[in-house]
């Protein structure tokens, strides 16, 4: 297909989305939104089908005769019973399976990562940065300690310090998000000016 047509389509959809902020909510914006929803919904199903379902059905079940693989397919299909009110409760069966497997994953596979994170957090206190880091971790943990009311002055000081660490972190995260969004905006403007209108040099 034509690269020019692709550029024009991309430009149309880019401008259609920007009409929301440059003008107001309008039909062109909602059309672009509709296209986005339709394409991404279909793409999600297509990728899932070709990456997970088709290989199992075509290779494992049909070619190799692994009929046990029909069980997870049936478990998954039970989820669709929620659209039939009289048997909607059957959809709890796959949910029960997923919740059970998920809980087992958390209990069996997270401790390794968790323990290594704890070990990595308690650094040798031989540098100022290490001291700040360890104090930061402990103070934020204390800030999230809700089991008993915190009344003593040192503990209150720790919670205040923990809150300060969190605020610094939130400020930094917010700034990083602003930077990434502005980079995307610049990328779209660059596309409109250079690739589509060809009025700005590379």
């Amino acid at each position, binding site marked *: 297909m034509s690269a020019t047509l692709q550029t024009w389509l991309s430009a149309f959809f880019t401008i259609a989305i920007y009409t929301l902020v440059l003008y107001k909510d309008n039909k062109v914006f909602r059309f672009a939104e509709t296209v986005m929803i339709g394409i991404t919904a279909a793409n999600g199903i297509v990728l899932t089908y070709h990456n997970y379902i088709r290989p199992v059905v075509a290779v494992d079940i049909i070619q190799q005769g692994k009929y046990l693989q029909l069980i997870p397919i049936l478990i998954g299909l039970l989820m669709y019973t929620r659209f039939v009110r009289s048997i909607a409760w059957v959809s709890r069966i796959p949910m029960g399976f997923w919740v059970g497997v998920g809980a087992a994953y958390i209990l069996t596979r997270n401790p390794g990562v968790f323990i290594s994170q704890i070990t990595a957090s308690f650094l040798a206190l031989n540098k100022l940065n290490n001291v700040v880091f360890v104090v*930061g971790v402990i103070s934020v943990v204390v800030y999230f300690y809700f089991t008993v009311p915190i009344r003593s002055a040192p503990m209150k000081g720790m919670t205040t310090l923990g809150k300060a660490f969190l605020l610094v972190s939130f400020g*930094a995260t917010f700034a990083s998000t602003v930077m990434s969004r502005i980079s995307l905006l610049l990328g779209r403007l660059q596309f409109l000016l250079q690739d589509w209108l060809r009025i700005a040099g590379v």
Partner: protein
Amino acid sequence: MKKTLPFILTFVSALTITVCVFFDLAPALVEEIDKWFILSGAVVCCIGLVNLTTVHARNIKRRGRDWDLSYVLLFITFAYLVLGIVAGPTHPLYAWIFDSTAVPLGATFYSVLSFYIVSAAYRAFRAKTRDAAILLVSGIIVLLGNAPIGEVIYPGFGTATKWIMDIANTAAMRAVIFGATIGSFITAIRVFLGIDRPYTAAGE
């Protein structure tokens, strides 16, 4: 039956994996349950499509708001779905449509947030309290440290940004992860023992 059967399945699947992993028994069984978990989840991929179709078919029938766009949505979704299922995601036409629509639309949608984030920043960063002042200072340092102009204004912005990201931000986020992980352990144990049964609301 309606509550017990799902709980039995939860308990059996959780117990099987936990015992097998902790005591290093039957790794093939754990691997098979892993596969089942992924495959059964993949089969559910169309549930959103069923919902989408139901909602928009109802909108068309009732001539609701933007009912014409509901037609467009259903046509685009099913046409692209059929193309993808029949031709595959690597087909040139499939990739061309994706690159012409979803790629620019996705990037533009995220970039639109930059307009709103500026107004949010104005509200959040007004240094009226000590907490807001900390947010403001940290945010400005990281913004300037990441922008080329920051190094021109003051060369120390880069170093300060690195310190904030590596020390203060990592320490705070690590502690948040500790809290979340402990919370997930407790939830997993409660689910395991049947104290929490989140799946019982399904199909109500």
